[in-house]
């Protein structure tokens, strides 16, 4: 059995860990509220953007010559995957869930004999992926300096993706992120952004629009923006998910630490009593033998 001193030290160390996890939980809770708010505020923009593009692509006259960002390059040889994770750890299964989703997708792509390229956003994803897919990672971006997800950062990623697309480096682009449902549930998502996937979304309104200038020109202006918008949406969802995930992970950790302290305290008291009893017995039997 551990000595009294050891037990005392362990109790103290678990208690201080508990303090840290408790503080982290509080911080995450405060940040979560803000992140959740901005995720919700950001939704109208991406929804409206999607709507406009849907209307446009339905109205487009010449499907053959549609912009490549919409219709694709006509082949599916090279896949680009943008895996978006956090820069910081201690957030439960947040990062591993995205990675798991991404890895199963990678395996499928490679099984089909297609080429795979990866861009990681956030250092945690890079850390986990580089062991297995190190040679596939072509770019690693991290926004450690930015406090909150902002459009400027998303635009940088978006522009990079488009540049690579224009240069013909890939045919299909998918982004991986966690969609925020509530504090305990985050759903890892794989969303294809190039070519734009509009299947299953029939345009209900038959209304025809007037376009100024013509559809093609608007589309070619709009599509690159849409890429950045989708990435920005993913970033917002991700940051809300990260905080939610961290909050529940830290809540669990705090509770577990509490249980551990209780258990250790009982053990400590037992061994203290045992020591006292032992000493008493020694004294009594010493007195008796006189």
């Amino acid at each position, binding site marked *: 059995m551990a000595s009294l001193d050891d037990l005392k030290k362990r109790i103290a160390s678990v208690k201080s860990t508990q303090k840290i996890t408790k503080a982290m939980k509080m911080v995450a809770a405060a940040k979560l509220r803000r992140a959740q708010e901005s995720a919700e505020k*950001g939704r109208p*923009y991406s929804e409206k*953007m999607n709507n*406009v593009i849907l209307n446009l692509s339905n109205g487009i006259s010449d499907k053959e010559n549609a912009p490549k960002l919409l219709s694709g390059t006509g082949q599916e040889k090279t896949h680009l995957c943008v895996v978006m994770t956090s820069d910081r750890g201690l957030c439960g299964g947040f990062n591993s869930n995205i990675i798991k989703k991404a890895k199963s997708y990678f395996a499928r792509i490679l099984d089909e004999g297609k080429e795979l390229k990866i861009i990681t956003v956030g250092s945690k994803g890079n850390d986990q992926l580089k062991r297995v897919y190190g040679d596939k990672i072509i770019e690693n971006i991290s926004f450690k300096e930015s406090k909150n997800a902002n459009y400027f950062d998303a635009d940088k990623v978006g522009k990079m993706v488009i540049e690579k697309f224009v240069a013909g480096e890939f045919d299909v682009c998918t982004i991986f992120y966690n969609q925020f449902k509530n504090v305990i549930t985050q759903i890892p998502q794989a969303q294809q952004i190039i070519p734009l996937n509009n299947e299953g979304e029939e345009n209900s309104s038959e209304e025809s*629009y*007037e376009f100024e200038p013509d559809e093609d020109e*608007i589309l070619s202006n709009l599509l690159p*923006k849409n890429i950045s918008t989708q990435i920005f949406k993913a970033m917002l969802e991700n940051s809300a998910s990260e905080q939610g995930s961290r909050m529940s992970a830290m809540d669990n950790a705090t509770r577990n630490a509490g249980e551990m302290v209780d258990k250790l305290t009982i053990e400590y008291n037992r061994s203290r009593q045992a020591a006292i009893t032992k000493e008493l017995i020694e004294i009594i039997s010493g007195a008796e033998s006189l």
Partner: protein
Amino acid sequence: MSEEFKVEIVNPEKSFLVKDDVSEVVVPAFEGEMGILKDHISIISFLKPGIIKILSKSGDENYYVEDGIVEFKNNNLSILTSTIFNLADMDKSKQQDLLKQAEEEANKTDINDQSKYLADQKVEVLKTLN
């Protein structure tokens, strides 16, 4: 019959402005300024750098935008933009900052004609704000 319609301006971060008593909106569309009144035909267009004027009963407002898309449908005007500033909040130093940025961009030599045109537009509009 009222001659008012609804306008909504959204930027990526949030819904920037919602107003439902607007009588006229003038937007800097790509092919020239465009005034929108109630019962305008459904239209989609995109913006170049310029000033959005919103005329309404509760007062007129002016906004500076750098880019964006307008969609008008069923007397609902949606403006999607990534950079927008209320002119009422714009002070000298901010305007100078933006102007400097725009000039830098316009003086780049490695950009294509369209970006060059847009950057020139930015400079022009910002100068008129003086």
